């Protein structure tokens, strides 16, 4: 399989990919191709390395001291662990939903707008539209709107965490 074929057919491709926590090998030599346009699920018992593998794709494991990898992992044909990879750009392109709801201690508006702002959208009008569309899309708009009319978006997520705001702004291709 050559590089061009990979780019067209698959989003994520792992070849002999391993993740180590120190000397412990948490994910051993995974070969996996995630095709475009399909939903791919990874299933396994607790502690088998599902999350570790997912976190390896957008390099969230870099935050864990002593974590390193072996083998190759490609995202849209680009080597994720290449020396020229900007992790910030990579993570902007790979969305991630955490196991637990993970809102910032900011207003709902600012939480939803955090992603778009990173993508360079700063005008109020543009953000208003995006925030409303996202909340409507997540079927939260009515609840949030009525709950926060008096506070005009100022309502803290913290107060109604999980129930109201479970996700976050979905950044472009969603792979996991």
């Amino acid at each position: 399989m050559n590089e061009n074929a990979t780019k067209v057919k698959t989003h994520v491709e792992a070849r002999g990919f391993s993740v180590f926590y120190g000397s412990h090998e948490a994910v051993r030599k995974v070969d996996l191709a995630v095709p475009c346009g399909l939903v791919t699920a990874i299933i396994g018992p607790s502690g088998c390395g599902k999350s570790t593998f997912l976190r390896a794709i957008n390099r969230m494991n870099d935050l864990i001291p002593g974590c390193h990898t072996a083998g190759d992992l490609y995202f849209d044909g680009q080597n994720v662990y290449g020396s020229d990879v900007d992790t910030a750009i990579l993570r902007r392109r790979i969305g991630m939903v955490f196991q637990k709801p993970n809102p910032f201690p900011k207003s709902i508006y600012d939480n939803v707008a955090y992603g778009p702002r990173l993508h360079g959208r700063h005008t109020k009008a543009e953000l208003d539209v995006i925030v409303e569309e996202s909340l409507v899309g997540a079927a939260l708009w009515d609840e949030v709107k009525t709950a926060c009319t008096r506070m005009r978006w100022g309502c803290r997520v913290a107060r109604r965490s999980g129930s109201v705001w479970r996700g976050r702004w979905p950044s472009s291709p969603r792979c996991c």
Partner: protein
Amino acid sequence: MRRSFRTFTDRAFTACALLAMAVMASFLFIVLVPILWRGLGAYVFQGTVEHRRMLMGEFNRGSEESLAAELKEVRQARAPVYQALEAFEKELAEMPASRRKELRPVFQSVRDGVASLLGSMPGEPLPALPRRIYGKTRWDQARHGARLILFEEVWEHDDDGSHRRLEPRKALFAGTALEPLFDLLEEKNLRRLMRPRLTLYARFLTDVSVDAHFFGGIGPEVMGTFYLALGAMLIAVPLGLIAAIYFQEYAKGGPTMAFLRSCVNTLAGVPSIVFGLFGLAFFINTIKVSPGKSVLAGALTLSLLVLPTVIRAAEEAIAAVPQSYKEGALALGAGKWHTIMTVILPAALPGILTGIVISMGRAAGETAPIIFTAAVSVGKMVKASELFVMPTPALSWNLYNLCTEHEAVDEIRHVQAGMAATLVLIVLALNLAAILLRARVAKRLKGG
């Protein structure tokens, strides 16, 4: 057996803890209540007509007409006092030499007492020092002054030690022209001479002192403390915040970091007088930030003193931010710096502010570091333009100075108490602000 022992230890510990807290609370009560109560006396007191005369003469404050009317009445009431003095002086000149020799020194001290009680004598040239122009401005001091005239203090020494006895002077002057004076100074009549009235002197906080704190307020000290604490925070907060962010988010560990950390911790344990001497040796003598003592040198020294506290508080606040906030921001593609600025610092801000406010209280109350670098005992209100070159009075240092080295420590007890209470209130207010901020951070992090 084991279970009963466990119950016993639990109960014993609870009892000890309750006792410890009761002791702490009572200490706080024993310390704070007298300080605040006596300090209140500097702001609210029975002010005599001399206080109002002083306010008009030194600060040009008060109503001129009512003061003039009051002074007219007072002058009438005081006239017999001066008449008695004058008449007795003439009488003294005609007395036999032996009697004159006996009475003259006593008369002289009575005369001096009257001058210090009622202010400068009419008909004499106006003295240069305000303390000789105005009489006693406070009713408690006026009563004390009158007692000093009415009674002679006699010390008796015997095997049990020394005893003080008060002997009325009236008996000594019985039958002379001075006798009516002593009746005039009895408390009921003294009220007509001094006209005490409940006075709120709120501007004690902002007034400059007149004649080395004999009159006036503690404005220069309050401003000096304010400038020093603020200056120290302006220097310590940016440095401390940068250090804390670096320690928490960037530093990789290793021996250098361990060494730097232990340096910071050691800095926190250095006695404050050492900081003062260092400030003098380094900031003033070596790098010469100012020609001599200055607010700048003091603020620099204080900033070194509070730097470890600021760093630690900020580090703890940053470490308390849940890892999930950081991961959430990073997973969205925010850079490290962006994550710190938009997520970590806002979440840690109340905790950081708590540390800053507590450090500010510490900087305001510290004495030793500013003795050699910034403080003067008597000074004018320092101007904002002179902060880099001029020293300043400050509450902490001047409180010590007024209690130990002032020429008349006993006469300015109210100023000392007022200063102590003001300093305590400033520090308490800062700590209260810190507690409120901490409550906010707890609520915020729990909610997230």
